[in-house]
């Protein structure tokens, strides 16, 4: 068991996502920054769909009640194990009674805690990803207890990777969306020359951008949307749907982020800036 002593700002269990229920309106969910999760699971020799903990901005305090091995990745939130500082992307042995806690946010926005064998929470519709109301709760709460399999010994194939963070990029790569052609020359010029910033309205569902561009009067029938779809409201606001984003929407879909850029955006927070780069 892992005891959640303090849950932090927004901490949830995520895996690769919930596939096969889109036709019922169920978003895919899953880790916002898959790139970081993949590496952590790889270092622990986990299956790619092993469930991890997604930690947003302010980290939790966690008590391990059994020995295991963990790996941290993504945003660096000054983690410590029994008050000893830890590095990201390194296999760490954990003993019964150890306490993992987090401090100051140094870079990024979402940090990941992967554990040997993955977290063993209940699967709902074939996934452990927390998404309300498919799962009972949208995130972890103080005093939650989370199952994992005890591991006493493990020799990792690779025990550590040194890497440049993939998320300090100041641009997002985009494809043309289905309604790209509605954009006027003015709107196109603004879209690809302006620097945009993340507004306060940003979460697992969507990131709204602070800057507006010239609006439009195009009305369309509701149609499919995906993580990374950039919606364009009549008032000229840009909304980028993320992993818990709605499966359909009625705003023109002018751009689509590449998968790599979804990972990059997932690590941006209120006020962070970027521009769009057309692929």
């Amino acid at each position, binding site marked *: 068991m892992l005891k959640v002593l303090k849950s932090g700002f927004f901490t949830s269990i995520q895996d690769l996502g919930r596939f096969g*229920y889109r036709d*019922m309106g169920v978003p895919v969910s899953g880790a916002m920054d898959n790139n970081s999760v993949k590496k952590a699971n790889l270092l622990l020799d986990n299956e790619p769909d092993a469930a991890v903990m997604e930690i947003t901005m302010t980290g939790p305090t966690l008590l391990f009640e059994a020995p295991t091995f963990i790996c941290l990745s993504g945003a660096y939130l000054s983690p410590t194990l029994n008050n000893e500082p830890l590095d990201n992307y390194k296999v760490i042995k954990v003993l019964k009674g150890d306490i993992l806690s987090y401090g100051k946010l140094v870079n990024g926005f979402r940090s990941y805690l992967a554990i040997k064998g993955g977290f063993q929470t209940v699967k709902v519709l074939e996934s452990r990803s927390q998404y309300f109301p498919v799962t009972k709760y949208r995130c972890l709460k103080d005093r939650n207890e989370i199952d994992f399999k005890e591991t006493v010994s493990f020799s990792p194939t690779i025990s550590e990777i040194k890497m440049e963070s993939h998320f300090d990029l100041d641009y997002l790569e985009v494809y043309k969306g289905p309604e790209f052609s509605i954009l006027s020359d003015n709107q196109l010029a603004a879209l690809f020359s302006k620097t945009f910033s993340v507004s306060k309205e940003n979460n697992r569902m969507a990131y709204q951008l602070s800057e507006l561009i010239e609006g439009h009067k195009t009305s*369309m*029938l*509701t*149609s*499919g949307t995906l993580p990374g779809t950039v919606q364009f409201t009549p008032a000229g606001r840009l909304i980028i749907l993320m992993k818990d984003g709605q*499966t*359909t*929407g009625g705003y023109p879909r002018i751009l689509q982020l590449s998968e790599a850029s979804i990972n990059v955006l997932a690590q941006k927070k209120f006020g962070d800036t970027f521009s769009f780069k057309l692929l």
Partner: protein
Amino acid sequence: MEWPNKVEESILEDILQFVECFKALNLPNWEMSAAYNSLTLVNFREEVDFENINELILECYSKRMDSKVKNERFLWKIPVCYNIDFGIDIEEVSKTLKLSVKELIELHTSFEYMVYGIGFLPGFMYLGGLPEALEIPRRKEPRLSVAKGSVGLASKQTGIYPQDSPGGWNIIGSCPIPIFNPKLEKPCFVNVGDKIQFYEISRAEYDLRKIEGEVGIYKPEKIALDA
């Protein structure tokens, strides 16, 4: 995939015909969601060769009429309590539309609404076929929270809020049974292409159905539609 920009049953039929044909290919990892005049095909789990899949889709579309598989379609009878406790806007709506509350309920329950899409939130149905007499603009100020099950009207649409959420629709009643229940093997009993007809229930029946819905024993009445 996009069809002409119109809300028409014949367009939806054509889309669903293609869906059956594509499903028959048994390609793993592909998900499809239809809405009005479009079909979104998604594969989250593997690299997609765009040229290849494009060819396959076109071939499949050209052969869609050969498909013998027909998914059964149903008309679902959905209970709604129009009591003022739930239909918090019903009096205002009746005034605006110049209908008595009784006439409004009669109108709302006498039509079969086509399910043109399921999306936005889990179990949210985009319903078409609302009579013109019930068309009313969205509320000027959206509410921060509309209760789960609320039945609303907004321009050409009527529908049920599948969960508590912000919203600007005019609320005329409440449906006590969940359209989406993640505890069930098939969490959403309705499919795109099905039809919905509402019927009025009393406050007492609402309470009963609500409990049945919560414990998952409520079986909504359905009538098979001839394709």
